[in-house]
C-alpha cells in the first residue's frame, strides 16, 4: 500500500513536470514581447534601455533553456514566479481567487451529482416508456447547450424576470446559485449520460436476474444491487468531471462578473501573463492528479475485485481463474 502510494506520487510529479514543460514551450513560442507586457499598454514612451532593464530584472534576457531550468528550480522551491503586469506572486493571485471559485464549483458538483444521478435513476427506474425515453434524451441536450448562453438565460429568468438571485457579484450564498447551476448543467448531463447508460447495461446483467429470481422488487434491484455496480464506470471519469468544472468557471465567472480562478485565467490569457497562465495550468494539473489518485484509492472500497498494487492484467496472464 505504502509502496503503491509512493509510486503514484512519483508518477504525479512526472505529470506535473510534463505539464510545466508543455506549457512553457507553448507559452514562450507565442508571439509578443513579455517586457512590453510588463511595462503595460500605456507605456508608449518607454525606451529600449528601460525594456532591457525590465528583461534583465525578470530574467527574460537569458537563453530559453536557462529560463526553463531557472523556473523549474523555482517551482521545486514552491515559487510559481511573478505575474508580469502586476509583479505580484502568482501563488498569491491563485490563492486569492480560489475560495470564491471553490464555492461555486462545490455547489455545482453537488447539484450535478444530485440531478445527474437522479435523472439516470429515474430514467431506468420508470415503468412509463414515454417518460423514460424523454429522460434518456435530456443528457445530450444538456451537454450541447452553450454555457454562456445558458448563463444569460438564467440571469434573464431569475435575476430580471423573477428577482430571486443577484445577476453579478460574490456577496452571500444567493450569488453562488446561478453560477453553480451554469457549472452543473454540462457536468450533470455528463454524469446522467454515463450513469444511465451504465445502469441500463448493469440491469441486463445475469446477476440482476438472479436478484429478481429471489423475489426482490425493483427498488431493491436498483438501489441494493445495480447502482453500486453501475457507479464504477462513472467513478472513472471523476477526473474528467473536475476538469470540466474548472474550465466551466471561466465562462461562469466572466458572465456573472465574479472574481475567481476562471476570471483570473481569462485575464491572464488576454494579457499574455505567462507566469500566471503557467501557474494556473500547473494548479489544474495538480488537482487532476490528486483527484485521480483519490479515485484509485476509493475503487477497491467499492469493488472487491480490485486490489491496490496488483493490476488485474497480471492475474489474467498468470492463468489464475478470476
Amino acid at each position, binding site marked *: 500500500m505504502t509502496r503503491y502510494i509512493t509510486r503514484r506520487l512519483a508518477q504525479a510529479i512526472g505529470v506535473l513536470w510534463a505539464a510545466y514543460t508543455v506549457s512553457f514551450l507553448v507559452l514562450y513560442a507565442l508571439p509578443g514581447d513579455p517586457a512590453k507586457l510588463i511595462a503595460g499598454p500605456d507605456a508608449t514612451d518607454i525606451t529600449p534601455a528601460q525594456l532591457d532593464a525590465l528583461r534583465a530584472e525578470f530574467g527574460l534576457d537569458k537563453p530559453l533553456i536557462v529560463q526553463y531550468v531557472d523556473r523549474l528550480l523555482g517551482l521545486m522551491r514552491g515559487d510559481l514566479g511573478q505575474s508580469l503586469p502586476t509583479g505580484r506572486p502568482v501563488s498569491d493571485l491563485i490563492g486569492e481567487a480560489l475560495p470564491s471559485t471553490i464555492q461555486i464549483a462545490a455547489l455545482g458538483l453537488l447539484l450535478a451529482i444530485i440531478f445527474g444521478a437522479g435523472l439516470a435513476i429515474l430514467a431506468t427506474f420508470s415503468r412509463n416508456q414515454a417518460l423514460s425515453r424523454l429522460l434518456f434524451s435530456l443528457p445530450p441536450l444538456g451537454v450541447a447547450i452553450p454555457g454562456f448562453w445558458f448563463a444569460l438565460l438564467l440571469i434573464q429568468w431569475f435575476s430580471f424576470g423573477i428577482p430571486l438571485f443577484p445577476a453579478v457579484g460574490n456577496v452571500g450564498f444567493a450569488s453562488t446559485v446561478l453560477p453553480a447551476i451554469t457549472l452543473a448543467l454540462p457536468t450533470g448531463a455528463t454524469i446522467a449520460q454515463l450513469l444511465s447508460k451504465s445502469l441500463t447495461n448493469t440491469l441486463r446483467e445475469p446477476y440482476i436476474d438472479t436478484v429478481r429470481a*429471489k*423475489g426482490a422488487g425493483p427498488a431493491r434491484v436498483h438501489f441494493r444491487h445495480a447502482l453500486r*455496480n453501475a457507479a464504477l464506470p462513472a467513478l472513472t471519469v471523476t477526473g474528467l468531471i473536475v476538469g470540466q468544472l474548472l474550465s466551466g468557471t471561466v465562462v461562469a465567472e466572466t458572465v456573472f462578473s465574479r472574481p475567481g480562478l476562471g476570471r483570473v485565467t481569462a485575464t491572464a490569457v488576454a494579457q499574455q501573463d505567462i507566469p500566471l497562465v503557467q501557474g494556473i495550468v500547473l494548479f489544474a494539473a495538480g488537482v487532476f492528479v490528486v483527484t485521480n489518485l483519490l479515485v484509485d484509492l476509493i475503487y477497491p472500497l467499492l*469493488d472487491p475485485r480490485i486490489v491496490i498494487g496488483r493490476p488485474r492484467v497480471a492475474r489474467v496472464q498468470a*492463468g489464475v481463474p478470476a
Partner: protein
Amino acid sequence: MSQTLPATTDAPALHIPVLEIHGLAVQYRTIADTIDAVRDVSLTINRGERVAIVGESGSGKSTTAHAIVQLLASQASIVRGSIRFNGTDLVGAARNTVRAVRGRRIGLVPQDPTVSLNPVKRIGTQVAEVLIIHGLADRKTAETAAVEALRRAGLPEPELRAAQYPHELSGGMRQRVLIAIAIIGGPDLIIADEPTSALDVTVQRQILDHLDELAAETGMSVLLITHDLGIAADRADRIVVMSEGVVVEQGTPAEVLSRPSHPYTRALIAAAPSLNAAGDVDRELAPLAEDIRARVFGGAPGDPFTVRDRPAAATGFDDHAPDVLVLNNLVKDFPGPRGAGRNVNRAVADVSFSVPRGQTFALVGESGSGKTTTARLALRLDDATSGQVLFDGRDITTARGRELRELRRRIQLVHQNPYASLNPRLTISQIITDPLIAHGLGSGAERRARAAELVDVVALPATVLGRRPAELSGGQRQRVAIARALAVNPELLVLDEPVSALDVSIQAQILGLLASLQQSLGLSYLFISHDLAVVRQIAHRVGVMRLGELVEVGDVADVFRSPTHDYTRALLDAIPGRSTPLAIP
C-alpha cells in the same frame, strides 16, 4: 401428445401436480417483426418429479423456463396459455403474487455461474437476501441460515465462503452458491437452466449429483433445462423434447431414447456425442466436391495461392511422412502474483507429444489444465520457458521475423467462440481474404475468387460472402472461421474447442466437415477440447492434461478402452449418458 404420462416404476412422482403449463406461447417483438419463441408448450410437473426439457438453442426451452417465473426479457411477452403453480395461474397475476413465489416457492439456478452473482457483495449476504426479501428471517438469523444453506449445497468451509466475494470462488463453487440461493427458501420447484454447461465435466457431475440428492431429500420437483440428451437421460424421470417452440415429444428416458417417435428426437439422439460410439463422425453430413483438393491447394498455372516449396510429404498422404509437429519437454512459467515472493505459476510442465501428419491429435483437459497454453506455445503465440517445438522437422522454438511469418502461413488457428472471433464490421468475403492480404497473396479479384471457392468448400452458399457475421448462425460462423484458416493453405490447424459453443447437431456437422477436409486435404489437426465425447469421434491420438502435466498419451481407442491414469478414468466416468441402461439404436 398426452398431458400426464404414467410414472415409471423408478419415478417417485406422487401425481400431485406442482406446475401445469397449458398452451403457452411467448413472443419476442423486435423493430422489424415478431418472433414466436414459444408457440405451444404444455407440460406438467408432479411433486417430487424431475423433468428435463431438451432442445437446441432457439428451441424455446430457456424462454419457457423464464416464462414460469416471469423473468422474460423486456421485449418478450406471454401471448397465450396458462402457467398454474400450486393451482394459481401466474400468467397475468399481480406483480406481488409473482414476487412472493420467486425465490420462496420456485428457486432458479441460472446458466452461467461466473456472471450470475453480484460481484460487489459478499456470498453470505447474497444467499441470506432471499430470507430477508420474504421476511422469513431478520438480518442476523438470515446470515446463520445462509451458512447452513451453503453447507447443504455442498460447499466446503461455508463460514469462510460466506465472507468471501464471488471472484474468490471457482465456477463450480459459485454454482453451489446459486444452488444455495435457490434452496434456502424451501421451494417446491427448482428450475435449473443449463446449470452446468459452463462447467468442467467432472464438476458438472458433482453438481448434478448434489442437486439430485437435495431433491430426493426435500421432495422438491426439479425442472432441468439442457441441450444434452445424455444429462437428461441420466437425471430425469421424464424428458420433454422441444423444437422451434413446440413440444415434439415427451416420455420417460427409456421411451424417448429407445422409441423416439418424432424425427427431431431421432436426429438429436444421432447427433449427441455422449450417446454415440467411437469414431463415427458422419461424413455424409458435409458432402464435399470431388475437386476440393485442387481447389484448396491450387496448382493451376499462375495460381497465386499455390504453395510451391511445400515438400511432397507435406500433403499428408505419405505414410512415412515425419510428424508435422513435435513438442519436446515444453515448460511454460508465468510470474506469480506480485508481492508473493519469487514463486512462479507453472502452466505447462514438461509436456512432450507429437502430431502425426494427416491425423488429429486431441489435447483433453479441464479448465486450467494448460491445454490452451500448450497450443499457444506450439503456435509460437507465446514463448516457452524451456523445451523445444519442432514443425515439419525444423526447430521453431526461437523462430522470428521472416521465418515466423512463413510459419504463420503453415499453421492456422480456429478459435472456440465463432461469435467473438469474427470481426463484426467486416463482410464474410473480407474476413476470409484477410489472411491473404496479410501475407500479400494474389490480387483483389483473385482473393475474392478464392473466398468464393472456400465458402463453397465449407458448404456455405455463395450468398453469405456479402453478409456480416451477425447475420449468420453459430455453425455458419464456425464454417467461416474454418474457411479463413484454410485460405493460406496451412498444413496444421490448431482447433481450440472448435465446437463447444455450438449445438449438438451443429457440432456433428462441423466435426463431419473437419473430418472430410482432413481426408481430402491431408490436413493435420491439433484439437483442443474438454469434451471427451467429441474427442472420441474426431481424434486419432489423444493426450490428457491435468494441472499442466500430460498424464496420459495414446491412441484414442486404447485410452478410451483401457485408461491407465486415474484422472482419465474419472473424466471418462463423468461423461453424461453413460449410465443410460439402454442400447441406443
